[in-house]
C-alpha cells in the first residue's frame, strides 16, 4: 500500500508544523516566568471577572511591562502565596511579583529588586466599633488582629507582640470581621481598598501607617537577572509606565515619585527571627488546640452516633430515612467542604461560631455518621437471642441493654472506634481552612516564615505521634483486656 495522505492527515501535519514553529518562535524570545497567587489576589493578580480565562491586576500589568522592557515574554505561573518563596527556590518560576515585601527572614533566601511601589498598612474595623482608633488600641485592649499569613503585616504583628489571626486571603479576613468573629483587620492599602473600603458595614480606623515596599523577588544565584530587573524597574518608573499602571488602579500617590530618584528609598523592613523556644511554645499551643478539637469532636461523634444508629435501624420510616440521608451526606462529601460550609454558610442564617468551635462541631457531625455505622454493625452482631435470654430472666429492656447487649457490642465496636479516633486526630488538620491555629496550620506558618520545612516538620510529626501513639497504645491494651477477659486468662476472683 503506498502512502497517500488523506485531507484529514494533511491538516494534522500542517497543524503539527505550525505548533513546532510556534514553539521555536517562543523559544527565540526568552520568557520571564513570574509567580503570584491569584486566589483572593485582587487587585494584585486575579481572574479577570469579564474574562475568567485570563488574569488582570496591577502586578499582572506591571509584570507584563517589566518583561517587555527587558525584551522578554511574561509568563504567569499561578502559585500559592504562603509557600511562594519555596516555589521560587524549586524553580517553578524565575521571579516573584506579588506585592512581595522585603523582610529580614526572606533576605536570607532571596534577592530583592529595587522597590517598584511604596505601600502602607490600613487598619479596618466594623462601623459600630468605638474602642479601636489605632493598631496600638488593639494591643492595649488585647484584641486579636486579622491579617494575611506570611506577609509584612503578619510579621509586624508578631514582632510587636500583638495577638493575630492568620488568613489565607483577604476575603476570609474581612468576612470574619464583618460577622464579628474578629474585631480588627490590618492589610496593605491596596487590598483594603479593593475588599473593604466599599463595604458599608466596615470603616477605616486611623490613617495608613508603616510604609513598606513591593519588590521583585529573585533567586540568590540569579545576580545577572537582578541587575536587568533593577534597570527595567528604573526605566518604567522614569518613563511613566509605572505611574500609568498604578493610576489606573487608583493606587497612585505623590510618594511614589521618590522611587524615580537614584537615592536609595527609605522603607521599613519587618523581621521575623525564628526563635526555637518561642516556636516550640507556639507549636505546643497549637498541639493543645489539636487535642481540644479531636476530643471535642469525638465526644460529639460518640454521643450523636447513638441516636443516629438507633434512628436508622429502629426508627419509623421517616426517622430512618432522615438518619440515612444524614449519614450518607456526611460520609459522601469531604469534611473540608463541610467545614467551609459551616464556617461561611452558618453566619448567613445568623449563627456565628468561632473557628475552633466550628471545627469541633463540623468534625463531630462528620464522625457521628461513621460512629453510627460502627454501632449499628456492633449491635447487629450481637445475636437477638441474647435479648430473649435477658427478657426470659425477667430483665427490663434498659437492664438487658446495659448489662447484656451493650458490653458485647462495645467489644466489637472498640477497634473501629479507635481507628476512627486516630483518623479524627489527623483530620483536625482540615481546620487550617477556617483559620484555626492548630498544629498543621502552625507548621505551615512557621515553616513558611522560616523556610525550615524539615526541622519544624520533624518537630510537628513528633507532636502528632506523642498524641496518637499513647492513644493507640491505650486502645490496644483495652482491647487486649477485653479479649483476655473473654478468653478467661484473668485469674480467679478477679471478677468480684
Amino acid at each position, binding site marked *: 500500500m503506498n502512502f497517500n495522505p488523506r485531507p484529514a492527515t494533511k491538516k494534522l501535519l500542517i497543524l503539527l508544523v505550525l505548533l513546532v514553529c510556534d514553539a521555536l518562535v517562543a523559544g527565540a524570545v526568552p520568557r520571564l516566568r513570574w509567580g503570584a497567587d491569584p486566589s483572593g489576589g485582587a487587585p494584585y493578580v486575579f481572574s479577570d471577572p469579564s474574562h475568567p480565562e485570563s488574569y488582570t491586576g496591577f502586578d499582572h500589568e506591571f509584570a507584563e511591562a517589566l518583561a517587555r522592557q527587558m525584551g522578554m515574554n511574561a509568563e504567569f505561573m499561578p502559585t500559592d502565596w504562603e509557600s511562594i518563596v519555596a516555589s521560587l527556590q524549586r524553580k517553578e518560576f524565575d521571579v516573584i511579583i506579588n506585592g512581595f515585601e522585603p523582610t529580614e527572614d526572606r533576605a536570607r533566601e532571596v534577592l530583592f529588586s529595587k522597590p517598584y511601589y511604596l505601600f502602607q498598612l490600613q487598619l479596618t474595623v466594623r462601623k459600630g466599633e468605638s474602642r479601636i482608633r489605632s493598631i496600638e488600641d488593639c494591643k492595649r485592649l488585647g484584641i486579636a488582629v486579622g491579617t494575611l499569613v506570611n506577609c509584612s503585616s503578619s510579621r509586624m504583628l508578631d514582632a510587636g507582640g500583638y495577638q493575630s489571626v492568620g488568613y489565607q486571603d483577604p476575603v476570609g479576613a474581612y468576612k470574619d470581621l464583618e460577622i464579628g468573629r474578629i474585631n480588627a483587620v490590618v492589610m496593605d492599602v491596596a487590598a483594603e481598598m479593593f475588599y473593604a473600603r466599599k463595604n458599608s458595614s466596615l470603616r477605616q480606623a486611623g490613617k495608613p501607617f508603616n510604609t513598606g515596599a513591593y519588590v521583585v523577588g529573585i533567586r540568590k544565584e540569579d545576580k545577572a537577572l537582578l541587575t536587568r530587573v533593577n534597570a527595567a524597574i528604573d526605566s518604567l518608573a522614569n518613563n511613566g509606565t509605572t505611574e500609568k499602571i498604578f493610576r489606573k488602579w487608583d493606587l497612585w500617590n505623590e510618594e511614589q515619585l521618590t522611587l524615580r530618584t537614584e537615592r536609595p528609598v527609605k522603607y521599613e523592613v519587618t523581621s521575623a527571627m525564628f526563635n526555637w523556644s518561642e516556636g516550640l511554645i507556639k507549636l505546643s499551643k497549637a498541639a493543645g488546640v489539636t487535642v481540644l478539637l479531636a476530643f471535642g469532636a469525638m465526644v460529639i461523634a460518640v454521643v450523636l452516633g447513638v441516636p443516629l444508629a438507633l434512628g436508622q435501624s429502629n426508627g419509623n420510616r421517616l426517622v430512618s430515612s432522615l438518619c440515612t440521608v444524614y449519614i450518607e451526606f456526611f460520609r459522601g462529601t469531604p469534611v473540608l467542604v463541610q467545614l467551609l460550609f459551616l464556617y461561611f454558610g452558618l453566619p448567613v442564617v445568623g449563627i456565628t461560631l468561632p473557628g475552633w468551635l466550628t471545627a469541633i462541631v463540623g468534625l463531630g457531625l462528620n464522625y457521628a455518621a461513621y460512629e453510627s455505622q460502627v454501632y449499628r454493625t456492633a449491635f447487629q452482631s450481637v445475636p437477638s*437471642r441474647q435479648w430473649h435470654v435477658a427478657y*426470659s430472666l425477667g*430483665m427490663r429492656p434498659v*437492664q438487658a441493654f446495659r448489662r447484656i447487649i451493650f458490653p458485647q457490642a462495645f*467489644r466489637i465496636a472498640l477497634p473501629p472506634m479507635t481507628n476512627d479516633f486516630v483518623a479524627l486526630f489527623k483530620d483536625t488538620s482540615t481546620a487550617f481552612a477556617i483559620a484555626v491555629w492548630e498544629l498543621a496550620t502552625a507548621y505551615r506558618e512557621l515553616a513558611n516564615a522560616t523556610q525550615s520545612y524539615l526541622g519544624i516538620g520533624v518537630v510537628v510529626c513528633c507532636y502528632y505521634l506523642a498524641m496518637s501513639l499513647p492513644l493507640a497504645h491505650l486502645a490496644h491494651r483495652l482491647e487486649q483486656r477485653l479479649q483476655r477477659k473473654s478468653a478467661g486468662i484473668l485469674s*480467679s476472683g478477679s471478677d468480684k
Partner: protein
Amino acid sequence: MITIKNLSASVEGTRLLNNISMELESGRILGIIGPSGNGKTTILMCLCGLLPFESGSITIDGQTLLAKESKTISETLWAFRKKSGIVFQHLHLFPHLTVLSNIIEAPIQVSRKTRTEAEREAMLLLEKLGIDQYRNKFPEELSGGEQQRVAILRALAMNPRVLMLDEPTSALDPIRSGDVRQLLQEFAAEGHTVVIVSHSVRFLKGFVDHLAFMGKSELIEINTTKELLEHPKDERTREYLRFSELS
C-alpha cells in the same frame, strides 16, 4: 400448674400454633415431641412470654397472660416472664461474663439480691452439678455439656415455676448424666413444672411423666408417657412413633 386455653400464634405470617389447649399439674415433667417445624419451639416461646400470640391465654401458677398483654410491654408481661425460665437449644450464655456472673446477673439485677447472697446460692447449685471449679471461667472455655449445665443453672437461679428446655439433646454432651436428670427431677418434685421439647423419643422415655405430640400446628394428643407410647390414639402419633423408632 400450667393452663393453656385456645392458644394461636404466628411467626412472620405463618400460623405455627392453632387453637391449642392443655393443662399440666405442678410437679410434672412434660415432654413435647413431633416433627420439626410443627410449633414445638413456638409453644415454649409463648410459655415464657417472649412471643406475642394472637389469641387465647396462658396461666402459670395463677398469673394469666392474655393475647393482648403478650403484645405490649406491661407489668403483667414482666410478672409473667418471672414465672418461667428457658434453656435455649443453643444455650446463648452471656459470652462476656464468667460462669458465676452468668448465673448471678439476673438475681442481682431483677430480684435485687445482694451479690453475696446471689453468689452463695449460685455456688450451691454449681456444687450440686460438680462444676463449681469453673465459676471464674468464661463460657467459651467450657464443653457443650458444661455450658448446658450453666444455662440450666442460670434459669434455675431465678427460681421459676416452670423450667423449659428446647432440644437439650443437641448439646455436644447432652443431659444424659444422672446428676442433671436428678436436678430436674428434684426441681419437679419441689412442686415446679418442667417442659422439655425434643425430637428424641428415646431420650424422653423413662424421664418425663407426660408426653404431648404436636402435629402441624396442633396438639394431637397428650397423655402419660406410658399411655402415649403404648396406646397412641391418633394415627399421626402412631406413624411418628414408628418412624422415630426406625431412626
